């Protein structure tokens, strides 16, 4: 399974931000998205995740293979760490394996209500969701925000060994070097003319 993107154009709020974007990511490989704020990193990831339609172009991705992780982790404060993770496993129809608690260093926190976790701990819980849902293509938006150096290294190791090492794919928007041997894609090269007003949006909207 390969993620292949051709001639992709995406818009944010009806204004095109990226145009004529193309790349291929083979199994076991990652792609790091670069670009200044507003370059369209989040928009691109949301389009790849199927949350928003592209303006043009095609995305070759098997259905139900992508997982999207945004700035917000969708953690329920009144559920415990394990309950949060078990919910995601059940929603994706995956068996529960508590190996993930070790992978993301959550073992000692497993019965704590998620609302009492620190910012970095909740981020780890948010990332641990990726470990239980078993998706092949991870679309990660700034996954290392509020993580300390040790947690970043732990996450990078998980990504390398447990995800990419098993033939997974990752597209990562990040400013922090993860130590992955991954090509970088500078979105500045694909910036759409900001003056161009989208005419396709209304049709795409409906």
């Amino acid at each position, binding site marked *: 399974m390969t993620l292949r993107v051709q001639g992709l154009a995406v818009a944010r709020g009806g204004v095109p931000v990226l145009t004529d974007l193309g790349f291929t990511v083979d199994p076991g490989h990652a792609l790091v998205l670069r670009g200044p704020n507003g370059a369209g990193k989040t928009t691109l990831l949301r389009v790849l995740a199927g*949350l928003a339609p592209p303006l043009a172009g095609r995305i070759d991705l098997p259905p*139900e293979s992508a997982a999207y992780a945004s700035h917000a982790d*969708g953690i329920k404060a009144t*559920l415990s760490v394990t309950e949060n993770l078990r919910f995601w496993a*059940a*929603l994706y129809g995956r068996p529960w394996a508590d190996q993930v608690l070790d992978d993301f260093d959550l073992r000692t926190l497993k019965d704590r209500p998620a609302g009492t976790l620190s910012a970095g701990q909740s981020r780890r819980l948010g990332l641990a969701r990726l470990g239980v849902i078993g998706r092949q293509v991870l679309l990660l938006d700034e996954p290392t925000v509020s993580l300390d150096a040790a947690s970043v290294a732990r996450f990078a190791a998980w990504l390398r060994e447990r995800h990419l090492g098993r033939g997974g794919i990752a597209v990562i928007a990040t400013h922090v070097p993860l130590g992955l041997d991954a090509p970088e894609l500078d979105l500045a090269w694909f910036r759409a003319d900001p003056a161009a007003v989208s005419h396709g949006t209304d049709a795409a909207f409906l």
Partner: protein
Amino acid sequence: MKALLLRDLRLAIRAGGGFGLSLAFFLIVVVLVPFGVGPESDILSRIGPGILWVAALLATLLSLDRQFALDHEDGALPLIATSPLPLEAVALAKALAHWLTTGLPLTLAAAPLGVLLNLDPAAYPWIVLTLGLGTPALSVIGTFGAALTVGIRRGGLLLSLLVLPLYVPTLIFGAEAARRGAQGLEVATPLLMLAGITAGSLALLPFAAGGVLRINLR
């Protein structure tokens, strides 16, 4: 779908989940009405079924804005939307969880609260029956309204304005069936209309809500 339903039920009964909100509101309205109307017991027993229905409807309305807003605020909604569960099923699970935590307790509480309204003994089964039949429609219609207003900050006012007109048919036929039943009149027509509204909204509105969510998530 079961996973989402169980999670929402669990969240509702945990601290701050809002499980008791509608029930408490219902209780307060029904307790206050006799004070406002005065001690004439025959007036109370005449308006009793209507009061219970209006109170149940408003109590349902009160808890609607939490339906998708919480999942939207903490970012769970896009993650659920990219899961294998279609958004139509998400809407249905949400509506079902809402009914189990709101409509069902209200239906069960209506009978004991009827005592405060000096309800005719013959009216009790009809109140429970019509509420039991009508509150699922209120939950499904409300879930559709909540899907329409997801992402709007303080969308509660807009939600109420959108949903209240849609609630009117349910209220009319529900209260009418309860009133007729209490007076021993023929109830088939309003009861069938009420059942029809519930069946229709259950069949159609999850699809509408799913579509609306998909657009709102863009």
